[in-house]
């Protein structure tokens, strides 16, 4: 079970609490997590990545285990601690502005 932490705006949009659980097949990848999450919460489609190209939106970041995974391949396996549920996958609205 992958634990995903959403930013506040998307918690409100999806009507969920801070953390949601996402079940994916092994090996767990970011793409698989996003696919399942968008299927469970269709209102999130387009808010994290483009609906056609699947490209991450510019001000969205994916953090886990003290690392920025935003620039990793979305088909690479997620860190073991994320895949096991020990550590959450954090979706972050990047700092922007003054």
């Amino acid at each position, binding site marked *: 079970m992958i634990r995903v932490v959403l*930013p506040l*705006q*998307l918690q*409100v*949009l999806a009507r969920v609490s801070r953390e949601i659980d996402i079940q994916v097949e092994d090996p767990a990848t970011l793409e698989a997590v996003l696919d399942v999450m968008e299927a469970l919460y*269709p*209102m999130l*489609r*387009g*808010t*994290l990545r483009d*609906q*056609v190209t699947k490209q991450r*939106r510019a*001000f*969205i970041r994916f953090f886990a285990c003290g690392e920025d995974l935003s620039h990793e391949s979305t088909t690479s396996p997620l860190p073991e601690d994320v895949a096991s549920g020990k550590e959450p996958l954090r979706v972050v*609205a*990047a700092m*922007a502005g003054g």
Partner: protein
Amino acid sequence: MSKVRVLVGTRKGAFVLSSDASRENWNISGPHLAGWEIYHLKGSPVNPDRLYASQTSGWFGQLIQLSNDGGKTWEPAGNKFVYEGSPSTHQWYDGSQRPWEFKRVWKLEPSLTDPETVYAGVEDAALFRSSDGGQSWQELPGLRSVKGNLWAPGAGGMCLHTIIQDPANPKRIFTAISAAGAFRTDDGGQTWRAVNHGLQSNNELPDPSAEVGHCVHCIAMHPSHPNVLFMQKHWDVMRTDDAGESWHEVSGNLPTDFGYTIAVHSHEPETIYIVPIKSDSEHYPPDGMLRVYRSRTGGYEWEALTKGLPQSNCYVNVYRSAMAVDALDPCGVYFGTTGGQVYASADSGDNWAPIVRDFPPVLSVEVQTLP
């Protein structure tokens, strides 16, 4: 007794302001969709409790929200806007060509006859239509084929900001784009043509009377006179009496004819309202005096409406979609400012008072007159 509902889109959410026909005491509801930019929200003329809202964010992109109870509760609708065909290109600031790229929805215009049908004007400029209550969207691509390669973004982006349906002819729709101009379809959106003859952009275009490229800011129509349109252009207030075949300037005695918004009185088709803004580099009222100008003669002759509006040290702007009228008698006129005020007049503009003073910057104002 009739009621009025004012729908306000702001930089940080949507608000619904309600009053009885006296328009003296207002109930404020909101912020709805808090923290997001609400570029526009508007109700269906057929089912006034059906509202559509454009909710956008630099972080999370575009959402469309739907309400079936007049704005009390909201549900996300479809937000997939995909241009038809392979992406063509438009002109960029440096003269190069750049592919169309969807950014946001500026305008939502519900159908005059079907609450499930709604049009969306988007940036980069295109027109989309939904026939299933906003769940899915299809582009009307014929519009972009009207010399779209020569369209260019204005300072606010290359946005389709005006959609006007002809109540007498369901096949006819007008749109306006910054900076491309005005366009008309007579076949329900399949084919389009530019209707910019008479527009002059002396400082903005190498050919001042070019077929496309004009920075049209807003167009308004009275439903009983669908061939008469009034336009606030970048500079110049314009009028057509033949559905856009030819335009002529009606700026008359205005202190400045730069501005963004324009509206028509609900019962007097020749009475129009604008808010003059000093210039294209100084986006605030001339002399720090917030004045609505009214013409009762369809243009040319204008009078300043000042009672109840700040007449010193006022440096707000009024955006293109931020003025609207109600259908009561006397006609109510409303506008919102970048300073967060929403002003209302219950007597056709003679006297004004703020409904609210401290909203986030106002992006759009629409009014519903309810039984």
